[in-house]
């Protein structure tokens, strides 16, 4: 019984995966991931003539059965990688992903070093049991006695 339930779950997941892969790409999603080469905003935010032409191209390619990647590749072949809202995760485009991470790491190291340096510069706090100079202690006692009287 348990084995049967496992088979059903696996089969359902596989079928869902196949259905998702076979589903045509969504034009709205693609328009949010591609950039108008003239106004440099995503296509869904642009009504420039070339953006409208690109939207029509996307719809035509979807109707023709092209995958999301095929449509993106076709537009990159026309307009270059600048047409992608997200830089490619490889080659020179990888820098756009790695540089912010590197900046965060470098920033954390710098902050850490600064905190360490500041905490050292302050020096140790005065010891709690440190005794006053006997002469000073006597003077304080006298002052306090005079204040009480």
């Amino acid at each position, binding site marked *: 019984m348990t084995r049967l339930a496992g088979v059903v779950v696996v089969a359902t997941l596989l079928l869902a995966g196949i259905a998702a892969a076979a589903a045509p790409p969504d034009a709205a999603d693609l328009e949010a991931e591609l950039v108008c*080469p*003239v106004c440099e905003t995503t296509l869904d935010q642009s009504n420039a*003539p*070339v953006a409208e*032409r690109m939207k029509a*191209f996307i719809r035509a390619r979807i109707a023709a059965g092209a995958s999301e990647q095929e449509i993106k590749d076709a537009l990159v*072949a*026309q*307009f*270059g990688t*600048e*047409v992608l809202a997200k830089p490619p995760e490889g080659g020179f485009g990888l820098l756009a992903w790695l540089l912010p991470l590197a900046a965060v790491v470098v920033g954390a190291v710098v902050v850490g070093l600064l905190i360490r340096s500041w905490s050292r*510069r302050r020096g140790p706090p005065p010891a709690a049991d440190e005794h006053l100079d006997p002469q000073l202690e006597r003077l304080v006692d006298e002052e306090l006695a005079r204040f009480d009287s």
Partner: protein
Amino acid sequence: MASRARLVAQGVAIGLVALLFILLAWSLLNDDGGDLAKQANRGDRPTAPDFTLERLDRDGELELSSLRGKAVVLNLWASWCIPCKDEAPYLEQVWRSRRDDGVVVVGLDAKDFRSDARRFADRFDLTFPLVYDGPGHTLDGYNATGFPETFVIDREGRVVAAFAGAVNGEVERARLASAIDEALST
């Protein structure tokens, strides 16, 4: 010692900010159209940025510098640009009437689909050399702000005149003819 170092750091930071303000003010005060078109129209004759781009009208590439010795009318256009449609027949006319004088009209199609650009060329029966720059990288070198723009380049590769917008009116066409003569005379 620490407070002295802090003072020095603050001084350096204030100095840098002051320097940035001075640079900003200098660039604003000297903004006399440092771009290529304004330099050309002032008579400075800046060098036309070279490019090598794929041909739209046939196989292969075209290198701008290979046209040295000729006057070049470089027209930046796109098929979706409405004024470009009005201008295209006139540029074809210029090409046909002046090519024997040593004039080459080059159409640089940018930020466009190749197929659309070819349809545009067929529609207007364009026979002058056409090149394609989909991403439009070449436009940066020419400081192009829109379509169409036209640059007249002399025999030595220097920009003699620039036209922002279509060369359609009588005044602009007369200016273009005069610029071509000037480009040929060098």
